[in-house]
């Protein structure tokens, strides 16, 4: 059996979690998932301003902090912390942890190859809308192919104790050590699918151990010291999800089911670069306190194409708020919204979207929210989005004047004018698998 944990569900997750995972109990592999869709375009911009940046900057100091422990306990770390600059990330790690052999997996970043791909006849259409990439080519900020677990397993085979990837698939971080340790082949689809299901369960960290869970949430113990999830994987692809003893949170089949259903589409076809996993195939059972077992996962061959995540500059946006109070808070907020919209209209400004929410009334659930009658206070929240930065800037001047010229008692403007932000849109496209060649380098 090998123990594989995930200590970061996203970049910005609890800094103590990975430290506690390596210190509080037995572990073979520590995975860390830093990359969300939005992260790649931010990192690409950072690299453009400084060629030594473009990776998850939390990662090298973390490795510095746990270096002695992972050396003593022989824990390997696998992370997609490399972002768009895995080599720079590895160099920063080596400075802080010179005793840890460090390898990188390269080949996911295809920003420089897009024109060649288009020329070669790959239209790389938006999977959702069918729009060819050429239509937005001049606004592309980043482009990365999702690479699979076999490339990461190859990095582990160098004897590296720290493996740094860029845009690997989330589940690949956990699947890689299973492939490496158990020698699973590229056609062992059921076992690969089991590894993918295991990786999916732990990829969002404590969402598998009682965080963000509706399962009797008031009684989930000690969320302040929640244990992050650990997969105990057998060579045949059966596995348990557990956590270190004496940590907070809880694991049971209801909690794990919630995470199994998190961010999936068709459950019969969970696509990864390594296999297709069938989430309707397996059996889940409670196997003791804070322990769930999964058996019988079935899988199939991976798709012919790899998914590419592409970020595209898509204009500007700003969101502003004002607060109105009882009596008639809702009516006041609606009246203020109408005034702002009329003034924008009279200025001749056009936007792709003007979106109004009454926070405290309908912001999150819209028409599904229960009706509220005469609440003590409401926050009016207006957002605009458009291609013309000057129009969005002008919008940011239109809220605060309502303190003097709008419905009575407007407040909550202490943060000043709204901030204008760049909008980055995401699209997925496909490229033939053979075009993406990964390679492993050990960084001295």
């Amino acid at each position, binding site marked *: 059996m090998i123990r594989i944990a995930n200590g970061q569900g996203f970049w910005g997750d609890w800094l103590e979690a990975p430290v506690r995972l390596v210190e509080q109990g037995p572990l073979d592999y520590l995975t860390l998932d830093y990359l969300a869709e939005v992260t790649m375009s931010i990192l690409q911009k950072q690299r453009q301003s400084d060629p030594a940046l473009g990776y998850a900057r939390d990662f090298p100091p973390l490795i510095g902090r746990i270096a002695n422990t992972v050396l003593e306990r022989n824990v390997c770390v696998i992370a997609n912390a490399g972002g768009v600059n895995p080599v720079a990330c590895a160099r920063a790690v080596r400075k802080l942890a010179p005793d840890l052999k460090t390898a990188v997996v390269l080949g996911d970043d295809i920003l420089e190859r897009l024109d060649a791909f288009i020329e070669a006849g790959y239209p790389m259409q938006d999977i959702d809308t069918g729009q060819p990439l050429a239509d937005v080519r001049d606004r592309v900020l980043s482009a990365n192919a999702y690479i699979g677990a076999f490339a990461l397993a190859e990095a582990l085979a160098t004897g590296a104790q720290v493996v740094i990837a860029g845009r690997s698939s989330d589940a690949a971080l956990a699947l890689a050590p299973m492939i490496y340790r158990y020698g699973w082949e590229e056609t062992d689809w059921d076992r690969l699918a089991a590894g993918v299901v295991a990786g999916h369960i732990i990829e969002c960290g404590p969402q598998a151990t009682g965080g963000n869970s509706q399962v009797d949430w008031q009684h989930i113990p000690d969320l302040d010291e929640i244990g992050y999830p650990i997969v105990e994987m057998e060579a045949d692809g059966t596995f348990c999800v557990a956590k270190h003893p004496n940590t907070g949170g809880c694991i049971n089949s209801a909690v794990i089911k919630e995470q199994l259903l998190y961010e999936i589409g068709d459950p019969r076809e969970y696509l990864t670069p390594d296999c297709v996993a069938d989430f309707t195939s397996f059996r889940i059972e409670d196997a003791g306190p804070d322990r769930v077992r999964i058996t019988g996962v079935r899988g199939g061959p991976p798709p012919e194409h790899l998914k590419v995540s592409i970020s595209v500059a898509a204009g500007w946006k700003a969101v502003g708020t004002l607060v109105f109070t009882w009596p008639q808070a809702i009516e006041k907020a609606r009246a203020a919204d109408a005034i702002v919209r009329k003034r924008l209209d009279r200025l001749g400004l056009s936007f792709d979207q003007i979106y109004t929410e009454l926070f405290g009334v309908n912001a999150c659930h819209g028409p599904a929210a229960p009706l509220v009658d005469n609440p003590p206070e409401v926050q009016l929240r207006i957002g605009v989005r458009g291609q013309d930065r000057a129009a969005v800037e002008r919008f940011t001047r239109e809220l605060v004047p309502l303190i003097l010229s709008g419905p009575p008692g407007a407040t909550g403007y202490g943060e000043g004018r709204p901030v204008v932000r760049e909008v980055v849109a*995401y699209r997925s496209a496909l490229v033939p698998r053979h075009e993406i060649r990964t390679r492993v380098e050990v960084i001295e």
Partner: protein
Amino acid sequence: MKVPLARLAHTRSGDKGDRVNIGVIAWQRKHYPVLVREVTAARVKAHFGSLVQGQVERFELPNLGALNFLLHRALDGGGTVSLRTDAQGKTFAAGLLSLEVEVDDREFAD
């Protein structure tokens, strides 16, 4: 009798592009057929009204006693584009719990 979905199931939601998915899991296996019968794609779409601009797909996971719903064009353009407070659809899960579900007393008895 009518009961809110919260009595029969728990939920979790998340985003992929401009889509929201909501997993709906029966608290007790015996209530899974009630979910299949009552919680249709059309009812989920109607429940969220103007929040969901596209179609709603439903998938069944009998092994988990669960349904998965995929709500298309449900995030005002997607997580990074959206102007909403809940730009990543995290609270659609809780929003669905108020859906009224018709059960007969026998089905609901423990």
